[in-house]
């Protein structure tokens, strides 16, 4: 019995270094990404995260074009492109009749097409798959340090800006009336979104990087109400999905990145049906309270 459990849950990580590396990388991504996802969700920016993930692609692709699959070049390219779109979409939205969501949609469609074109110009289809879906099973030291560093910066920064970020989300007019923190806090938050997407990009690729942010956040919302609980539960769900997804991929020879996101997706669907605030609970005919 214990042998079976060991073989199923522990042995894959104990025996193979690439599994241990993947474990560290994916769990770090999950723990930092999930709280970011919670705020994206609560600020009604879930799709903004998705759009931003695509916006990173051409920057990373230009880095790839200049120096191949170099971590530094692709990271820098991704950061620059992501921040440019985050700031640009906000600026265009303020200066034109288009709302921010329309601007973001336009920017990310352009980015995705441009990025895929640039990668295809030089690389093979394998490289393109690498960029689009990541290589969580091939994280080198440099990539792990980058991901762990991003996770650390994210959690510390979130702790520092938690109060103004919450105030800005609940009642932006109030915050503006007592402080000038609103706009900088929004920018710092968008910077964290981009950072985490760039980190996620190496492990999960541009298309799935946002998965470890949004799916745990949405799942947590179906179980708990309180903000602190949401942040903790989302990080927990994300980390558990990362572990379970890696094991699933190991035992059934599935691609690792998609397996992690699929696991998080299954948790989301289960929460949607069975969560304390999910579909079944809403239909259950429980007697109403007196007050």
């Amino acid at each position, binding site marked *: 019995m214990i042998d079976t459990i060991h073989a199923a849950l522990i042995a894959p990580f104990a025996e193979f270094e690439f599994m241990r590396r993947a474990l560290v990388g994916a769990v770090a991504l999950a723990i930092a990404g999930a709280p970011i996802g919670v705020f994206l969700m*609560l600020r009604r920016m879930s799709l903004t995260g998705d759009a931003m993930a695509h916006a990173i692609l051409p920057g990373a692709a230009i880095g790839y074009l200049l120096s191949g699959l170099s971590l530094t070049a692709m990271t820098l390219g991704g950061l620059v492109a992501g921040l440019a779109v985050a700031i640009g979409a906000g600026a265009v939205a303020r200066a034109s009749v288009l709302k921010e969501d329309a601007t973001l949609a336009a920017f990310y469609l352009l980015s995705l097409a441009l990025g895929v074109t640039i990668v295809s110009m030089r690389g093979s289809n394998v490289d393109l798959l690498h960029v689009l879906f990541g290589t969580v099973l091939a994280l080198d030291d440099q990539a792990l340090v980058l991901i762990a560093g991003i996770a650390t910066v994210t959690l510390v920064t979130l702790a*520092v*800006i938690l*109060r*103004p970020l*919450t*105030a800005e*989300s*609940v*009642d*932006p*007019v*109030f*915050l*503006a*009336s*007592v*402080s000038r*923190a609103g706009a900088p806090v929004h920018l710092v938050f968008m910077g964290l979104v981009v950072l985490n997407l760039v980190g996620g990009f190496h492990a999960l690729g541009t298309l799935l990087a946002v998965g470890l942010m949004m799916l745990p956040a949405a799942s947590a919302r179906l179980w708990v*109400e*309180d*903000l602190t609980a*949401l942040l903790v539960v989302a990080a927990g769900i994300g980390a558990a999905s990362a572990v379970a997804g890696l094991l699933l991929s190991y035992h059934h020879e599935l691609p690792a990145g998609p397996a992690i996101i699929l696991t998080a997706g299954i948790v989301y669907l289960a929460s949607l049906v069975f969560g304390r605030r999910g579909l079944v609970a809403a239909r259950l005919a429980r007697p109403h309270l007196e007050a």
Partner: protein
Amino acid sequence: MTSPAAAIEFDDLTLGYDRHPAVHHLGGRIARGVPTAIVGPNGAGKSTLLKGIAGLLTPLSGAIRVGGRGRRGIAYLPQISEIDRGFPVSVFDFVAMGLWGRIGAFGGIGRAERGEIAAAIAAVGLAGFEARPIGTLSGGQMQRTQFARLILQNAETLLLDEPFNAVDQPTTADLLDLVDRWRDEGRTVVAVLHDLDLVRRRFPQTMLLARELVAAGPTAEVVGEANLAAAQRMIEAFDNHAHVCARPMA
């Protein structure tokens, strides 16, 4: 500098959006410590004026001078629709935001602050609601919660934008008692209101706006048939395709 008797002074003030003035060449002052009502037809620029005083809108021309501690001494109650009630914060945490001027983004909330927050919540009749998410409150309870936050802001001047809209009679009465308390403490309350009976009963001073100042002074003199009719005419004369204003800039 403002004169000692004035909480706020307007100097040929024009406020607006996209070059269209919503408040046009406004002069005058709001007296310190006297509850003052701002009345006028829809579109008269009442909310815009409050936003300008709160510093959320930069004047197109002219100036607003705030006495005492300046903008730091101002608390602003916006219209309720601008709050995200779906965001999961409790009544306690929401009210605690009122301490921002004192503790800012990083200061701690210790036992003394917790006591003050609880007292403010009790003062608006919501004791026992501390842990409730704001999304579960009724409209009246939400307004009480916002007044609790105002109490904690400890402001010299309180700007209230339609504070009794969609609020029932008992709640309005309770919140008006708070306005009286603030008056007795020497604070200046400026409220945008539509209920003229209420204005006559509880607000000694009134500014009647119709984009420009129609009249200002003791409520009994300002709120009369002739002035109200004049305000209505001025609003209806507004031209969407207006020329550039020819009056000299302040």
